Each structure stands twice: as C-alpha cells, then as structure tokens.
C-alpha cells in the first residue's frame, strides 16, 4: 500500500474511533508539520505547536471523507492548513502590534551582527528574514507551491510573491555569505 493510501486508511479508521490509527497518523505527519510550522513562525515554538494542534483538529473534524484516490495527498492538505494558519497568525500579530507596511520598500543589507548571529545556519538565516519574505521563500523554494497558490494563501498578488521570494533569497545569501566564504 502506498504511503498516501495508508494515510487515508488511517484517517478513516481514526474517524471511526480507532486510537491506534490516529496515533499512527500523528506520528507520520506530525514531526514534518511541526518542523514546517517552526520555520513558518520564525522559530516560535508555542505558536508552532498551537498551529499543528489546530491543523490536526481540523483534520479530525472534517465531515467529508478523505478520498484516497483524489488528487491531493493528506500530507499536502495538512501542509497547506499549517501554512494558512501560520500566515493568518503572523498577519493578526502584525495588526495587533500596529503593523508595518507589507512590502517595505528598502531591504537594508544585514549587519555584521546579523551575520554572526546566523553563523552559517540556514535555519537561523530563515528565522532572521522578515515574516513575509520567509513565508514566500519557504512556500516557493522549500515546499514548491506555485506563485499563484502562494498569492492566494498570503492574500497578495503574484508579483508581490515573486518580489518577496527574490528579496528573501537575496537576503538569505547575504546572511550566509560572510561565514560561508570563510568556510570554503
């Protein structure tokens, strides 16, 4: 049985009250989703854990049965739920804190302190990106969503996604540059 069909079968069993199937599904999907949520939230662990719990709650509460022969994999659907929850959460936090313009026109070069703090770690460099640049880079370059899908998730235009991705990638390179040049 393929992983996708196995996951779909576990979901059906879990929704019928099989606790072991629910645990198998959580153990299969949970760790990757938590890693994804941690990256999307810039390393905010309590937020990431809330997001993963909420994503599973939505899965358990689905009234429509999962179609194992459908086009979407369960893990893909869950990834999208996590992405949407993380984006909504960041948007809400920004609104509550007074907010900053969504597309800041100037990207200052990272300071030496920023680079030292990152220390060549890609994860730390991602965490150091502005929220929306990080989200765009993760969704486009790590998880392979299309620009159109990302635009829909982030509530902006495709051009804005392209700009955020390009600027995020450039900043990542800058953050990683100095330490890595030293490594070569």
């Amino acid at each position, binding site marked *: 049985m393929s992983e996708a069909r196995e996951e779909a079968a576990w979901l059906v069993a*879990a*929704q*019928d*009250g099989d*606790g072991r199937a*629910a*645990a198998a599904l*959580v*153990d299969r999907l*949970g*760790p*990757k989703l*938590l*890693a*994804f949520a*941690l*990256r999307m939230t810039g390393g905010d662990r309590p937020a990431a*854990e809330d997001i*993963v*719990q909420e994503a*599973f*709650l939505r899965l*358990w*509460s689905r*009234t429509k049965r999962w179609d194992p022969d459908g086009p979407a994999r369960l893990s893909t659907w869950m990834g999208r739920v996590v992405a949407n929850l993380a984006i909504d959460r960041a948007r809400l936090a920004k609104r509550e804190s007074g907010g900053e313009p969504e597309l800041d026109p100037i990207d200052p070069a990272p300071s030496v302190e920023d680079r030292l703090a990152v220390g060549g770690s*890609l*994860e730390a460099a991602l965490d150091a990106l502005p929220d929306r640049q990080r989200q765009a*880079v*993760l969704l486009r*370059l*790590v*998880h*392979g969503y299309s620009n159109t899908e990302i635009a829909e998730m982030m509530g902006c235009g495709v051009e804005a996604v392209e700009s955020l991705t390009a600027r995020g*990638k450039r900043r*990542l*390179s800058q953050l*990683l540059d100095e330490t*890595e040049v030293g490594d070569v």
Partner: protein
Amino acid sequence: MSEHHRLEDRLVALEEAAEPLPPSLRGAILTDAAEANAVRGLPWRIWLTGLPAALAGLWLGLAQPALVLQTVPDLSGDDVALLEEVFGGASWDLQQ
C-alpha cells in the same frame, strides 16, 4: 556548482526536515481526536436511544391519556387543551 544553486539545494533539502512532537503536544492532539470522533458518533447514538423514547411518548399521548393522567392528576384546563392540540384525537378532557 554556483552559490545560487547551492542555496536552492539547501532550501529544497529542508522539506524533509522533521521535529519530534513533544509528548504533551502528541497527547493533546490524540485527545482532540478522541473527542472529535466521539462527537462524530453522537448523532447515531442519539438516534438509537432517542427514537424508542420518542415513539413511547407518542404512543402514550395518542393512546393512553388515562395512564398519563393517573401519573399527573392535577392538570389545569390549559394543560389539557395543549395536550389535546398536540395529540389530536385523544380525548384528554374526558379523562378529567
């Protein structure tokens, strides 16, 4: 390999990254699952237990006014009128 491609490769590799679920989070998710699935099964349980009770109530109201009045002897005129309206056909007033 250029730095540009190297960064992209490193980003792609992140897709497989995993972070073990803390036991408290895993437990909370499984508790949610048990509760959500209990709620999902509820309509059938209500149906199975509620239907016989509803049928018994209907039978009492339609065919056994005397039995009901025996249990609740002090019904007012308004109560009787209401019962007659709900269970049209049964002669609740005669039982008074």
